[in-house]
């Protein structure tokens, strides 16, 4: 059968693994840092040695609850851990401690902006689990595989949505929103390249108008927003082609191949594991006090959506500005720090969204570690306000301000960029310009006012951009009038 021309709707759900920013691992006292020499961040517990036992990291539980509350989840005060059993060299105990029947967070929802409208994405559950280690295959000796267990046992929050997304753009919007929220809460650093935020979309197609879901494919190995979009769009095309050709979609897990830009089968449904989940008898069920949950709810920081609304109402910013400024907590914090020092929100917003963000993006840097501190940016703006330098000069020197680590005053002084407002000096320049352009003087005096702009430009040019434009205007009118 050939279904060419049939239109399909894509149905996407997302599993996200967020590594929690705890100091120690999920079930032992080892540190949870990234990038240490292999197996130096291990102990008998996370090595799965005989007789050792796990102890729950209280901070990880707290982070999971805070994330759950921010995602509008119900917090299950009585939740427990389960063992997910499978063999793999990077899994020291032969099982992963996870949560199965009783996850800590359930039934949440977040609203994401899709074009001009907002769409709710339901969060089915968010549960705590431990990460596995890493197998290393590319050593000098190809016959040997090595295992690094530094990461084994670091805490993860797995956040699972309902199949509520209908396009790659919706997935990206949700993922960005989720990442913002987790970063706002300081529970995850959101770094997709390093794997502290991993996403696994599951995706199916159905003919437009059909209620029943199609066969689901899971995608793995996606470590940037770009790849999320690319992989999903590739997979939609692939599945459309299969269906239109009369074929059937196999239920399977597929890996995104970055180099080739395609997905390929990793394992089929038949090869899927039976994980034999059962409650972990080494851990007593958690019983979280409602008071404690309530206190965490009260202490939640302002989340991106609320902050965006506040930026519009409190600072009178356009929606667009408020949206850009609240994309990351660091940027929003930066903006507010500036406004506290210099109460001109729209001016600050222009600078932060313009000059600052351009430099930060070029350097791949976060606002939290910007080499230009809010104090420095504000002192630059104040130089403009006081008339010490022109706006143009301020813009011109910003890259140097960013790169050099010098203060705006130092740069202005060293380069002699101080604005010229002295009437005697300006009158001299004006006199010279008028002498060079007698024809234009005559035009102006015969009533052609528009020539004024020409004179302003010439005077500014002659002063090397340092002349105070307001003063130049005022003096020119006086002189030209004769």
């Amino acid at each position: 059968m050939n279904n060419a021309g049939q239109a399909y709707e894509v149905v996407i759900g997302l599993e996200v693994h967020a590594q929690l920013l705890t100091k120690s691992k999920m079930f032992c006292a080892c540190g949870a840092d990234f990038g240490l020499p292999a197996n130096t961040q291990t102990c008998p517990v996370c090595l799965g040695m005989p007789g050792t036992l796990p102890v729950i990291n209280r901070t990880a539980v707290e982070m999971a609850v805070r994330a759950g509350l921010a995602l509008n989840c119900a917090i299950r005060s009585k939740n427990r851990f389960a063992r997910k059993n499978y063999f793999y060299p990077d899994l020291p105990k032969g099982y992963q401690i996870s949560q199965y029947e009783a996850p800590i967070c359930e039934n949440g929802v977040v609203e994401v902006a899709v074009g001009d409208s907002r769409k709710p994405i339901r969060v089915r559950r968010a549960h705590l689990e431990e990460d596995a280690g890493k197998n290393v295959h590319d050593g000098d000796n190809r016959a040997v595989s090595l295992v690094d267990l530094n990461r084994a046992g670091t805490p993860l929050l797995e956040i699972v949505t309902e199949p509520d997304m209908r396009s790659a753009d919706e997935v990206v919007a949700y993922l960005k929103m989720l990442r913002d929220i987790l970063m706002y809460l300081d529970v995850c650093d959101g770094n997709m390249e390093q794997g502290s935020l991993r996403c696994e979309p599951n995706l199916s197609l159905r003919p437009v108008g059909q209620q029943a879901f199609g066969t689901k494919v899971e995608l793995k190995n996606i470590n940037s927003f770009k790849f999320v979009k690319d992989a999903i769009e590739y997979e939609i095309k692939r599945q459309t082609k299969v269906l239109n050709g009369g074929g059937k979609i196999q239920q399977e897990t597929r890996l995104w191949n970055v180099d080739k830009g395609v997905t390929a089968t990793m394992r089929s449904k038949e090869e899927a594991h039976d994980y034999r989940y059962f409650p972990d008898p080494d851990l007593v069920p958690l019983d979280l006090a409602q008071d404690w949950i309530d206190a965490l709810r009260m202490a939640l920081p302002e989340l991106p959506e609320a902050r965006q609304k506040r930026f519009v109402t409190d600072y009178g910013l356009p929606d667009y500005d408020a949206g850009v400024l609240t994309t990351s907590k660091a940027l929003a914090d930066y903006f507010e720090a500036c406004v506290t020092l210099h109460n001109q929100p729209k001016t600050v917003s222009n600078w932060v969204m313009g000059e600052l963000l351009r430099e930060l993006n070029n350097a791949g840097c976060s606002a939290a570690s910007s080499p230009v501190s809010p104090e420095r940016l504000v002192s630059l703006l104040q130089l403009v306000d006081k008339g010490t330098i022109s706006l143009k000069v301020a813009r011109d020197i910003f890259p140097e301000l960013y790169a050099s680590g010098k203060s705006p005053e130092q740069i202005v002084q060293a380069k002699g960029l101080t604005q010229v407002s002295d009437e005697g000096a300006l009158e001299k320049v004006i006199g010279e310009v008028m002498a060079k352009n007698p024809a234009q003087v005559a035009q102006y005096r015969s009533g052609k006012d528009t020539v004024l702009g020409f004179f302003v430009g010439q005077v500014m040019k002659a002063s090397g951009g340092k002349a105070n434009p307001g003063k130049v205007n005022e003096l020119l009118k006086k002189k030209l009038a004769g």
Partner: protein
Amino acid sequence: MSLHKLTLRELSDTFGKGEVTAAEIVRAYTLRINQVEPKVKAYISQVKEAAMAQAEALDQKLKGWRRTMPLMGMPLAIKDNICTQGVLTTCASRMLATFVPPYDATAIARLRGQSYLLLGKTNLDEFAMGSSTENSAFGPSRNPWNLGAVPGGSSGGSAAAVAADECVVALGSDTGGSIRQPAACCGVVGLKPTYGRVSRYGLVAFASSLDQIGPITKDVADAAMLLNVIAGHDAWDSTSANLPVPDYTKALKKKDVKKLRIGVPREYFAEGLDPEVEQAVMAAVEELKTLGGEIKDVALPTTDAAVATYYLIATAEASSNLARYDGVKYGLRSKQSHTLLEMYMKTRQEGFGPEVKRRIMLGTYALSAGYYDAYYAKAQAARTLIRRDFEAAFREVDLIVTPVMPTPAFKLGEKSEDPLQMYLSDIYTISVNLAGNPAISIPCGFSKAGLPIGLQLIGRPFEEETVLRGAYAYEQATDWHKKRSAVR
């Protein structure tokens, strides 16, 4: 004076008074071990030289000062599934034949804190799976009362070592009777504390929700002394109870059971119980009555579900607990393997004995998709019923008295080909693990063939004191515990 014949309390007193040095103690036990160990085979590994070095250092340090802690200088044997830092801990398995843990179990750390002396690690059924110590990769231990009989299991090595005076006291572990049953077989005292009373950290897990470390000793007072040291909350074990620990030796002040209500569950005196055992246990019940106990009938109606429930839950947990032995990190790795899958399969094929494999397969099956509800989930429901049985019974009585084992110790090889018969030798002990209660096994007689018979006293959770009081009163009124095996 033969030091090896003393109880812990006597030896500790003697040492405390400075009448004997730690080195003399180790020397006496070395002699005794050299003499009887070839017959009994209680130990998997001995560390007598290290014990002697520690003893000499201790004597040096004390230099005439009196000892301050009850276990100081006391020579112990430890079941070889309890981790001892720097000392081989094999679980009687080829899988861990070379495993030396870099950490102590919490119970061991507490003993070390008192400067105890480790003589060696005792034999067991591989990974504590068995009731005869025949499932050891290093060969069976023998019953000191009759070298042709099994010492029981799985803590058979510890029980045999105590019965043969090859240590003053020992630690065992009890998942379904593994302390009490060998204690009964060997005519010594074995105490399984309440689940959560003693930390499991460093006890190599067989079935995590059932395992518990406990003392195996020559008499009840020694069990109380040893429990004093190892009991208590441990931040490294989330399942350990955060409750105060009483001084258990104070429970031994009363030598009667006046005002104690003692229950006898009729379900434990049904078909399959050897008449000699029944007689001895019923005589013990009479004795407890004479000592002031109020004897009552109690019902534990779910008893007949206990064996099935136990073998589903214990094996399910074991199948997961033993997954870590995969050849990747420590222990055995098969040399015959070329691929990952081959490494897993051959390592586990070569490393585990038949009983361990049997239980891993049973447990894996019970947890599998499509079978979980019918097996594991149902077993958990049955476990709840069993626990409720005990709760109901303990509203009527303060102690429950039963046999420990349906028969006296059986012959070596008699049941090793018939796992079901073997499983039934735990029928009176496993319910207690499923419910979590404390229970003790004490000697209460001998068969005509001269083999010891054990009496089990079960108490409410965390009421080890009542269990010890009942056991002590009975012990003081009888002579069974004074009889020693003839092995020499």
